[in-house]
C-alpha cells in the first residue's frame, strides 16, 4: 500500500516537474521571442557607405597660404590646411577627444577644437588640451595645379 502510494507520489512528482519545466521553459521562450526582435529592432542597420577614393579640393592657386578649410570626404569631414610655407596637408577633422569638428586657428598657427580647447600642430599631432591621439592624416596629391585628397594607404 505504502509502496504503491510512494510510487504514485513519485509519478506525480515527475509529472509536476515535467509540467514545471514545460511551463518555465515556455515562459522563457516567450520572453526571449518577444525581446529578441525588439533588441534587434533597436540596433540601427548598417548602411553601406559610398566608398570614396579621393576628393578634389580645388586649384592650388586658390588656396591661400596660412589657411584651412573643411571638405567633405564621403560622409566624414576632412580639414585641409596650407601652411605659411605653402605646404598643403589634410587630416581627419574629427577631434580625437570627443568627436567635435576641428578648425584652423590662424593666430596660433594650430588646428583647434572649440569644444574642449584641444590643439594640434600642423602635422596633426595633439600638442595641448585633452585630445589623446593625433588626427588621422590624409594624402594630398597635387596634379596639374589641382589639389586632391585621398586616404593614406
Amino acid at each position: 500500500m505504502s509502496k504503491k502510494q510512494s510510487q504514485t507520489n513519485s509519478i506525480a512528482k515527475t509529472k509536476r516537474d515535467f509540467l514545471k519545466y514545460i511551463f518555465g521553459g515556455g515562459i522563457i521562450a516567450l520572453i526571449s521571442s518577444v525581446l529578441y526582435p525588439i533588441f534587434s529592432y533597436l540596433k540601427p542597420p548598417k548602411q553601406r557607405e559610398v566608398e570614396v577614393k579621393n576628393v578634389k579640393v580645388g586649384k592650388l592657386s586658390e588656396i591661400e597660404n596660412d589657411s584651412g578649410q573643411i571638405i567633405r570626404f564621403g560622409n566624414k569631414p576632412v580639414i585641409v590646411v596650407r601652411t605659411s610655407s605653402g605646404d598643403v596637408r589634410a587630416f581627419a577633422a574629427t577631434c580625437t577627444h570627443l568627436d567635435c569638428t576641428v578648425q584652423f586657428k590662424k593666430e596660433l598657427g594650430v588646428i583647434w577644437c572649440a569644444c574642449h580647447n584641444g590643439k594640434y600642430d600642423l602635422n596633426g599631432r595633439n600638442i595641448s588640451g585633452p585630445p589623446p591621439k593625433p588626427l588621422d592624416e590624409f594624402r594630398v596629391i597635387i596634379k596639374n595645379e589641382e589639389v586632391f585628397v585621398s586616404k593614406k594607404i
Partner: protein
Amino acid sequence: MKKYFKNIYSWIDERVELEEVVKFMGKKYVPVHSHTIWYYFGGVSLFLFIIQVFTGILLLLYYKAGEELAFESIQFIMSKVQFGWLIRSIHSWAANLFILALFIHMFSVYFEKSYRKPREITWLTGMLMLFIAFAFGFSGYLLPWNELAFFATKVGTDIAGVVPFIGDSIMIFLRGGEDVTGATLTRFFGFHVAILPGIFTLILAIHLLLVQRQGMSEPMGYENTKIAERKTMPFFPNFILRDLLLWLIVLNVLAILAVFFPWELGRKADAFASAPAGIQPEWYFLFMFQTLKYIPPQILFIDGEVFGIMMFAVAGGVWMMVPFWDRKSSRGEANRLVNYIGLFAILYIIVFTIIGWLV
C-alpha cells in the same frame, strides 16, 4: 446650482466613495517651522513639469522631426505661428527652471536629511527623476537641429561611448548609427516625447503617492520640541493655497523670461562645419564639461575622459545612495560628514559653472 453640484457629487460618491479621500485630505497636516519654505520646491518642480507637458504637446502640433525639417519647423513656429515664439520660449525656459527647482528641492532634502528612514524610496525615485530630467534636457536640446545642439549631442553621445565594454553599443543605440545624423534626431524625438514622459510619469506617481502616504518629513530633532509648541497647518486648503500662489508667481517669472529673453534658435546644424568658438552645453552640464577640460589626456593608465566620467558616475552613485550609508541620521543623530559632502558638492557645482561661464 449648488444643488446640482451636490447631486453630481453624491452620484459619484455613491459609486467610488469619495468621502474617504476627502477625509484623508482633511486629516493631512503640514508641519510649520523655520524650514517650512523648503516644502514648496517639490510643488514648484511639479508645476514646471505640468507646464512642460502642456507646452510640449502644443509644440508637437507644428514640430517636424527630420534633418531637413526640424530647424525649419521651429523657425516656422517662432515666426509664423501665432504665439509660437511664446510657447517655444516658455518650453525652453521652463526646462531650465525645472532643473533649477529640482536642484533646490534635492539639496534641501539632502541637508534636511529627509531621505532618512522611512523615506529612502522617495529619495531614490526623486534622484531617478533628476536623471530623467537631464535626459529630457539633453534629448530636447537636439530637437531644433542647430549647430550648438549638433556638437553637444556629438560630445554627449561620445561620452556614453567611453563606458567600458558596452559603450560602443550604447553610443550606436543612442545615435542610431555611427555618427550623429537625422537618425539620431528621430531617436531623440522618440525618447523626448514618448519614452521619457512615460517613465517619468510612472516614477512621479510613486513619488507623490509616497509623500501622501508618509506625510511631510519633519526636521531633525523635531521630536524633541514639546508637542504644544509644534505648529501645523492643514494641507487642504491652507498649504495648497500657498502652493498655488507660488505657482502663479513662477508662471509670471516664466512669462517675463519668455517675453524679454526669447529663446534663440541659432544656426542650422551642418555636419561639415567646424564646431563654433565659445560652444557650451546647457548650464546644468557646465560643471562637468568644465572639469573635462582640465583633465589631462592620460591619468595613470586610463584616458583622462574615461577617468573624469567614471569619477562623476561614482560621485553620482554615492550621492544617490546617501540614505543607505548615512545610518546616523536615521537614528536621529547629527551627521556632519553628510553636510560637508553636500557643501562641497554645491561649491564645486557653483565654482565650476561660473568658471565655465566666464572662460
